[in-house]
């Protein structure tokens, strides 16, 4: 309601929405976008001090700014390009077909990555579940990045600029595997240590 009143005053403008420390899901953000559209305003970015909100807004494809409040109550706004996130993102739940995750830093998924889903991280990807979709580690060029999963049977696997198809054989039960670059190729080996 507050937003609607504000928007009535400033029609047809590009907006950046400050979400403070609220944890907002994609549905919440879409509602905000709908309200803005009613007033002919276009949201170009979201900023928030909640990492959940930033993840939601990134997965919707919007620019995101992470706000850190330090002790002296000065706010630092960190621009998208140099977003300093907690080093590892934790994603709980299965990533379903058609869902895309682009994460700076490491990515830890508690759940499966279903066929038709795409997850990408600038560093390593660890999946405590099955990788059946497409995973891209080292997305900005880090060829030291690795992809590990409890069951590694992806449609396609990518590390830095290398691409490989997933293995065809049925996986051995209880054998966690890891994919990494060795001699310019992606190889898959049993997971000995992370």
């Amino acid at each position: 309601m507050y937003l609607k009143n504000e928007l009535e005053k400033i029609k047809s403008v590009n907006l950046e929405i400050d979400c403070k420390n609220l944890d907002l899901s994609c549905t919440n953000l879409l509602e905000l976008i709908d309200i803005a559209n009613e007033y002919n305003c276009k949201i170009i970015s979201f900023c928030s001090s909640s990492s959940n909100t930033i993840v939601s807004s990134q997965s919707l494809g919007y620019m995101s700014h992470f706000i850190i409040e330090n002790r002296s109550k000065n706010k630092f706004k960190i621009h998208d390009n140099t977003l300093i996130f907690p080093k590892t993102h934790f994603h709980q739940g299965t990533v379903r077909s058609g869902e895309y995750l682009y994460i700076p830093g490491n990515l830890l998924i508690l759940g499966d990555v279903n066929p038709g889903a795409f997850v990408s991280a600038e560093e390593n990807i660890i999946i405590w579940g099955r990788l059946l979709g497409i995973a891209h580690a080292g997305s900005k060029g880090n060829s030291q990045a690795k992809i590990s999963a409890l069951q590694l049977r992806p449609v396609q696997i990518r590390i830095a600029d290398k691409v490989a198809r997933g293995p065809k054989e049925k996986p051995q039960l209880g054998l966690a595997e890891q994919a990494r670059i060795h001699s310019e190729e992606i190889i898959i080996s049993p997971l000995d240590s992370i």
Partner: protein
Amino acid sequence: MATDTRVILICSGKGGVGKTTLTANLGISLARQGLSTAVLDADFGLRNLDLLLGLENRIVYTAQEVLEEECRLDQALVKHKQESNLSLLPAGNPRMLDWLKPDDMQRIVDMLKEQFKYVLIDCPAGVEDGFKNAMAASQEAIVVTNPEVSAVRDADRVIGLLNTNAIKPVQLVLNRVRPKMMANQEMLSIDDVTDILALPLLGLVLEDEEVIVSTNRGEPLTLNSVNSPAAKCYLNIAKRLQGEDIPLIDPLEESSGFGAKFRRLMQTKIF
């Protein structure tokens, strides 16, 4: 009371998996148990629900006229010839696709909620506007799929969309199950499907040639051919929807058990 009405979206992503057949048969089964049920055809582009229920020639007004306030809701509702507890709200003109918004769907469903205990929405295939509009007005969902890779992939996409729109509970119906193919591992097993989709299985429906016959006649299976395999499955689904705990048929038993073998022997022609 309006708040007690269950509004259930029947969707699938992929086309041709059996949404409309399920909607028709589920509608009849619920109506037969004395529950006032409305079925709404949300596929304005390619409408089929009226054909399956055999009510095509009884349609005077459709959802379009109701929304444009050219007629009252009860003038548009078509009561089923034999099951008076079941009413159909026919889909409107395909031109409706140009202007229909989620709010319009919500208006129609709100009107239906006042009169019926169950509102079943037959969703169009795909994940485009038709699906989004239908989803906006629903509380729960039943995802229909076949034990086949492309159907499961599309169902997974749809479930993801239902989840981000807070539709719950979402349950699964596995349609067109062929026990023999499953036993020979030529078809995805039930576990294969539920592993990926991670949804509770509301029921499975066996592949049944009678479905084709019933569609052509406009008489849903659960109306007159209650003993056919698929009809029994639909009836079980209707009961489970209301909370009854009926064990699922094991398709592998269906194809190899003594009962099945005996049945097949009795059906083989000797001359």
